[in-house]
């Protein structure tokens, strides 16, 4: 009886202790979830998930209260595991902001229940409503300040997790700013134009408008008025001498300038007379650049096989569609050291910048200014003629390209400058008859800059285009960040520049890309010759068919039918040969890939099996020896 009781009490104790342990486990995890949110090791190379010093600075500098309201529908959160996980991170980061701001940031979490006042508010802030179930689900952030400033993130996208800190800090930073700085854009490319063919301005302008007051400066200016914090000149192919003079004098007087030039502005307007040519492909800003001690090499376009972007070619005349590296389109990637100037705040934080047919910048010997490269190609870089870039034939470029060393495609110019107009202001433009235009008088000539200038020159305008900025996700478009950083840098602001691009580095299989490139070059001549022959045979066949009144080869005389049959046969052969060459081009990649598959799938398992066999044999031998010894002893 006693042992029965003892057993019962032991069972009770065991069950109780299990229940207690479960309760303890729940408590520990509840406390851990609530208190250990910020305790974590950020194992990423770029410390993507840690609050940066810039964010801390922005939060510490806050002088007025800011309210951040996170609208998060629990229905949406509960339906989606990734949103649940991400929302936890957003809430945790917002709480961190609240703490770091010393109370200036007030964070509120709102569950906008359907048909509630909160939902009305969410809708009035234009938050994006995701409808996964019956009710709209919100996951957006609204920030307000005491002066009626409102900033909204309509939906916190899980895919942009690595940019979360940037989004939040930018919101806080904007709400803390009383006034945005003014930038004037001298737009020779049409990035701000809205007309019948271009229904909206380029996205880069929208992006800049988030950080600056963007003002369009008419191209016929004769003086830069007061009030601009910086002037951005884009593709200035047609500035009048009076405009150039006004620009120079603006800089001489301490004005800030960012210039986008281009030897081949691929996104500029097509010539009205020739649809295969550009109306105004290049811009050099002469004679100002000469006076500043810098030149963009005339009619030459930068190319670099190490940075080239693949484009799709073929699909015609029996050839397969395939991707070929187009050398003048280059993607500068952080993975390759030396492309971005690591010392300059404009380029130090960048991960990838894509350029199309940029120009090559270099200092003029004896210049009074200092030339600091910002973006540079690799040592395999070089230049091709503008005409070749215009033809846009990847094979031709590949075959004719000769590397000549690293090319600078963006640079900072600092130091004293002298005027390019020693003879005084050029005459004002002539006013067309009947037009009611009055030009402002030119500024008085200053021959030497009042202080050291600080100009950023970028030898590409295509990097501003929507398709280049967002078209190629694989290469991590950070062009917009580069442009904003450059403008912010000349106006004197540096906060947020490091934050701007804390997105994960795009990492690709460089080795496979290199192997593919080499294989492509090795067989390309032969393939091109076959394709040309194939096209020729096709043309001859078409000519033969044309001789028949009804376009049918079967109705032709016997000798011509024979010739057509031979041509057809030759076409089949060529088609097969082209495919063989393409297979040969793929052969090395295929070999490497299957080698890697074998090494990964088979190698270690085979070693494990061998080890197992060795252990089994060893144990058997040891057992046999033991039995033999025992038998001998007996």
């Amino acid at each position, binding site marked *: 009886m006693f042992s029965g009781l003892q057993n019962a009490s032991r069972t009770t104790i065991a069950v109780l202790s299990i229940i207690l342990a479960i309760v303890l486990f729940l408590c520990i995890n509840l406390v851990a979830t609530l208190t250990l949110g910020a305790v974590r090791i950020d194992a990423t190379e770029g410390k993507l998930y840690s609050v940066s010093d810039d964010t801390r600075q922005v939060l510490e500098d806050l002088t007025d209260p800011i309210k951040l309201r996170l609208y998060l529908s629990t229905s949406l959160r509960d339906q989606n595991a990734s949103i649940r996980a991400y929302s936890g991170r957003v809430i945790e980061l917002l709480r961190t902001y609240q703490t770091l701001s010393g109370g200036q940031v007030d964070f509120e979490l709102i569950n906008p229940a359907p048909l509630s006042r909160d939902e009305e508010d969410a809708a009035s802030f234009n938050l994006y409503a995701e409808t996964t179930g019956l009710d709209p689900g919100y996951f957006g952030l609204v920030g307000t300040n005491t002066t009626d400033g409102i900033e909204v993130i309509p939906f916190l996208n899980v895919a942009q997790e690595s940019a979360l800190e940037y989004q939040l800090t930018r919101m806080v930073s904007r709400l803390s700013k009383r006034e945005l700085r003014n930038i004037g854009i001298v737009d020779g490319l049409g990035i701000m134009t809205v007309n019948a063919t271009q229904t909206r301005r380029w996205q880069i302008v929208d992006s800049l408008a988030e950080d600056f007051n963007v003002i369009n400066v008419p191209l016929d200016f004769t003086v830069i008025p007061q009030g601009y914090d910086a002037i951005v000149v884009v593709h200035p192919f047609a500035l009048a001498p009076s405009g150039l003079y006004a620009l120079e004098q603006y800089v001489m007087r301490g004005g800030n300038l960012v210039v986008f030039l281009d030897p081949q502005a691929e996104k500029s307007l097509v010539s009205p007379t020739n649809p295969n040519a550009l109306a105004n492909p290049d811009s050099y800003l002469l004679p100002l650049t000469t006076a500043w001690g810098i030149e963009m090499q005339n009619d030459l376009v930068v190319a670099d096989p190490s940075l080239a972007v693949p484009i799709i070619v073929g699909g015609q005349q029996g050839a397969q569609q395939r991707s070929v590296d187009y050398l003048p389109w280059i993607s500068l990637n952080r993975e390759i050291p030396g492309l971005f100037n690591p010392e300059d705040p404009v380029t130090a934080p960048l991960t990838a910048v894509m350029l199309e047919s940029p120009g090559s910048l270099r200092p003029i010997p004896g210049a009074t200014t200092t030339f600091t490269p910002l973006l540079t190609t690799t040592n395999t870089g070089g230049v091709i003629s503008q005409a070749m870039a215009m033809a846009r034939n990847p094979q031709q470029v590949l075959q004719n390209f000769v590397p000549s060393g690293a090319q600078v495609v963006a640079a900072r110019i600092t130091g004293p400058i002298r005027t390019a107009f020693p003879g005084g202001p050029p005459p004002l433009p002539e006013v067309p008859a009947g037009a009611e235009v009055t030009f402002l008088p030119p500024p008085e000539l200053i021959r030497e800059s009042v202080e050291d200038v600080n100009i950023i020159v970028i030898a590409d305008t295509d990097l501003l285009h929507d398709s280049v900025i967002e078209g190629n996700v694989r290469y991590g478009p950070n062009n917009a960040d580069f442009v904003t950083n450059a403008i912010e840098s000349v106006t004197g602001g540096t906060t947020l520049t490091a934050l701007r691009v804390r997105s994960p580095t795009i990492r690709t299989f*460089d080795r496979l890309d290199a192997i593919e490139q080499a294989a492509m070059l090795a067989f390309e001549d032969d393939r091109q010759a076959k394709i040309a022959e194939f096209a020729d045979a096709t043309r001859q066949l078409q000519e033969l068919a044309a001789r028949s009144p009804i376009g049918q080869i079967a109705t032709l005389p016997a000798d011509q039918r024979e010739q057509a049959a031979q041509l057809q046969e030759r076409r089949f052969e060529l088609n097969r040969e082209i495919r063989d060459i393409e297979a040969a081009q793929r052969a090395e990649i295929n070999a490497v890939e299957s080698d890697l598959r074998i090494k990964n799938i088979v190698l270690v398992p085979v070693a494990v099996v061998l080890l197992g066999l060795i252990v089994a044999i060893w144990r058997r031998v040891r057992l046999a020896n033991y039995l033999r010894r025992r038998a001998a002893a007996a």
Partner: protein
Amino acid sequence: MRVMLTIARREFVGYFITPLAYVFLVVFLVAAAVATFYFGRFLEDRQADLIPFFQFHPFLLLVLMPAVGMRLWTEERRSGSIELLMTLPVTTWQAVLGKFLAAWAFAGICLILTFPIVWTVNWLGSPDNGVIAAGYVGSFLMAGALIALTSCISALTKSQVIAFVISVVAGFILMVSGLALVLDLFTGWAPEYLVDLVASFSFYTHFNELTSGIIAGSSIVFFVSLIGLLLLINRQIIELKKAG
């Protein structure tokens, strides 16, 4: 401590004197590599990271760790050696921990032997090795939790098959508890904090956080406390069986 380590060593060596361990190793390594290269499109996507590798780990571990741990106590109970073990001068804790550590070390060997994929991705490009290391930490912790779960369940039954099946099902529930599938059972009637608590018990949520490169304190506490809880329950069950 020394006794526990002796048990762990004995158990660990025990794995390698039967063909079973080699079969597990080969199955795990081949399955992990095949999933990475064929289902994960590792080479086709050309991204220098190990997402295609780690994304299959929860499912591989969910099946293979119960297979490793299912015999931890069932075998002892079936053959009656549990009585013998308990007559030895070892405490139940030492036995439970020793067996668990041996199985967890075996799981560690499984993960270590996937080194060719790390070499491959570094040969092909420049991956973020910090994120890869965090992914391995996540896999190792999840393997530990699944082994502790299996060890606990194996103490309840004499049948390895039953232990395996129940462990896989229980592991699956813990795996998906952060997903709508499970949360739907709670939303509507349970208070929000309870739903949050259930969601925070998802292996998957914690594992995903680790494989993205964040070694969060709450994730470590979750896995370690879960292992501790399961081993404690394991010990109590053995004690009860011993008493019974």
